[in-house]
């Protein structure tokens, strides 16, 4: 029963990561795109957790959900907010 739940959870999370990545690339407002990218990273962190990689979860959550969006937000603040015309 637990295995079925884990596998279904893994499927759900990987499909959600695809949706978040698509929205992150399509979104023209960079701030919203960064938030979608952080959601996609959180989904990947869950994938790593289910794939039995606790070390990578520990390094991936601060890096990809915390620091990378902060860096990209700084860059967006200093340059242009909208992508394209």
């Amino acid at each position, binding site marked *: 029963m637990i295995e079925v739940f884990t596998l279904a959870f893994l499927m759900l999370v990987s499909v959600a990561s695809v949706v978040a990545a698509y929205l992150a690339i399509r979104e023209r407002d960079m701030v919203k795109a960064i938030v979608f*990218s952080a959601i996609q990273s959180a989904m990947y962190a869950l994938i790593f957790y289910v794939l039995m990689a606790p070390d990578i979860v520990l390094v991936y959550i601060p890096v990809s959900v915390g620091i990378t969006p902060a860096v990209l937000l700084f860059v967006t603040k200093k340059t242009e907010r909208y992508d394209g015309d």
Partner: protein
Amino acid sequence: MNLSLMTAYVVVISLYVNLGIALYGIFARPSLVKKLLAITILSDTANAFAVLVGYRWPKTGTPKPPVYTNSTFNNQTLHYYVTHAVDPLPQALVLTAIVIGLAVTIFIAFIIIQYYRLHGTVDVRKARR
């Protein structure tokens, strides 16, 4: 088709789709910041692939993380550990790759800011003129 095989297909296919989405972002979106964001998605997907290759589903029992958790050592516990833990090597490589990837991302971010200071835009189509 059993559920574990189906899950494996769904995960692998979604990772491939993410790879395609990230490549589209790198090639087709005009903003350099969006390209940088797509590069981070691409590297994360490559790392997820590496971890997925090191995963295992043992015939009996469930997979274990690559941490030896028994405080007593004998041949039985060691054999259980070796036959149930997932591959630690891709995890070790991905671990350093993520931190170095962050350093390289920050470096590219500095270069993009400098580019904006000199050219006044981060749109590659406008910068060409």
